């Protein structure tokens, strides 16, 4: 009975959203004997990973789904995300959003994505909570922190001491010295978002990236806006082909988020189907409509589980809504009427 009382039952369907013709996977249940959805032998498959919650005026949710390519081969999701919140000594509160997409050419990229996203989020959290923290100098210090703290930590992990002692984060059970930087390559996207909108309903957000994982702002108007970073060459981000930890030079930009905007960090498993040369693609059009306001978690998982031929890469999104409970006309009236 409670089910029937939901206002929009169709939005809670478990049928994946179909974009274009059905893919080979579209009509196939994951448990079918075709074996197109295999478990990962040593765990850490991250077939579906979610997180969600509110902080200040923000509603934040993240979903990561293992791509068909890895499900077929029984390999882990090579995307990962980390979300933290932190208060500075000046009592300013921030959400820290980190997304990593492991390069398929890197042998341990699934581990590297898990570890890097977590290390980077913790590093930023520590920097912001430090006595000497100043927002103005944060961007210039990020590359140094990545180089001096995160990269060395990623490349070394304690040797297991017993047969059942596995290194944290599913690190490969081998000597860390035998791992090359090229085994650990990931893209890295960081956003540091104030948890309250400023006086004019706007807030400065720091966005940093290494590599080509896309970030968008979904404007209140329903348009996708792709922020640009630092030095541009004919509109092409110069660090597009870069990967951490091979490079620690992070491209930084500061953007303004207005009340009602939604910041969207994505791996290219989703981002490649948002728009093409600034023209929205079919998935982008759909998500622009349904992501204007926060989504409940099962529906968000369904959104990211879209069925589209050739979209077989891992898919990860972190969505940050700046106006989680818009005041509608009716409530406004109640406030205004004595």
């Amino acid at each position: 009975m409670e089910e029937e009382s939901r206002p929009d039952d169709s939005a809670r369907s478990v049928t994946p959203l179909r974009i274009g013709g059905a893919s080979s996977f579209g009509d196939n249940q994951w448990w079918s004997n075709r074996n197109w959805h295999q478990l990962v032998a040593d765990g850490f498959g991250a077939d579906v990973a979610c997180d969600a919650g509110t902080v200040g005026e923000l509603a934040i949710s993240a979903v990561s789904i293992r791509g068909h390519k890895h499900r077929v081969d029984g390999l882990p999701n090579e995307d990962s995300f980390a979300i933290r919140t932190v208060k500075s000594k000046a009592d300013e509160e921030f959400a820290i959003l980190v997304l990593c997409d492991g390069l398929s050419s890197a042998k341990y990229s699934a581990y590297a994505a898990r570890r890097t996203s977590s290390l980077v989020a913790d590093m930023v959290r520590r920097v912001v909570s430090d006595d000497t923290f100043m927002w103005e100098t944060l961007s210039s210090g990020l590359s140094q922190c990545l180089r001096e703290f995160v990269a060395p930590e990623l490349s070394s992990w304690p040797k297991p001491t017993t047969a059942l002692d596995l290194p944290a984060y599913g690190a490969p059970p081998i000597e860390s010295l035998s791992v090359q930087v090229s085994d650990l390559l990931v893209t890295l996207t960081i956003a540091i978002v104030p948890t309250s909108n400023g006086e004019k309903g706007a807030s400065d957000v720091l966005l940093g990236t290494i590599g080509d994982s896309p970030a968008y702002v979904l404007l209140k108007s329903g348009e996708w806006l792709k922020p640009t970073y630092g030095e541009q060459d004919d509109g092409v981000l110069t660090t597009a082909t870069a990967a951490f930890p091979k490079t620690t030079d992070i491209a930084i930009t500061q953007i303004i988020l207005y009340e009602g905007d939604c910041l969207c960090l994505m791996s290219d498993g989703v981002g490649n189907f948002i728009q093409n040369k600034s023209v929205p693609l079919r998935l982008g059009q759909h998500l622009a409509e349904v992501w204007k306001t926060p989504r409940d978690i099962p529906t968000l998982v369904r959104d990211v589980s879209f069925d589209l031929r050739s979209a077989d890469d891992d898919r990860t999104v972190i969505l940050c809504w700046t106006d989680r409970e818009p005041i509608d006309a009716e409530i406004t009236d109640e406030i205004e009427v004595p």
Partner: protein
Amino acid sequence: MSETATGENILPFYIVCDESGSMEGIGGIDAINSGLPELHSTIASDPLVSDKCRIGLISFSDIAEELLPLSRATDIPAMPGVQAKGVTNYGEAFTLLRYVIDRDIDALKSQGYQVFRPAVFFITDGEPTDDQSWEPTYRSLIDKSSNRRAPNVIAFGVNGANATTIGKIGTVGAFIASNGINPGNALKEILRSLTNSIVSSSSSSTPQLVVPAAPDGCTAVPLQTV
């Protein structure tokens, strides 16, 4: 909404196959006709590959024919076969190939697909019978400055094929069967190699042509300028 592109990636593959009379005697027709269904079965059963690649089949002898329009493997009920006849007219094959590629890319783009550069597997057992007249046609097909849709070509030669000619036709790879190798067996290996190339090229999330290693019984020949 139906007018909007989906961004679906397509990697088109064309198999251009010699069916001149000489193919019959060397067991080439049987080798091709038994190898094509295996290729189809392998691709259709791999969901990652069949979702991304499209296959077309062109045969040539006196004239060229489109035996299979560019199709998704799972939409093909059975692969057509080749039939021995006539001579080895390369020019006819390249003329038809240019027309078919233009037509297919126009159609795919109008349906909202993102189309990658086509790949062509060219298989022959002999020297061209249209002398040098095929070369200008071929040059206009592969010249990327005048033809934005110029395909990447991998050429395979068996039996009477000339290594220099095969080297001219391949733009990214060229292979010739070694002396003393049964041409029918060489063609079977070539079709396996070609299948592996399609599977490897389409398996990546961002499709890219993977040029095969030399098939068993074949050696790579240097690419030549036309």
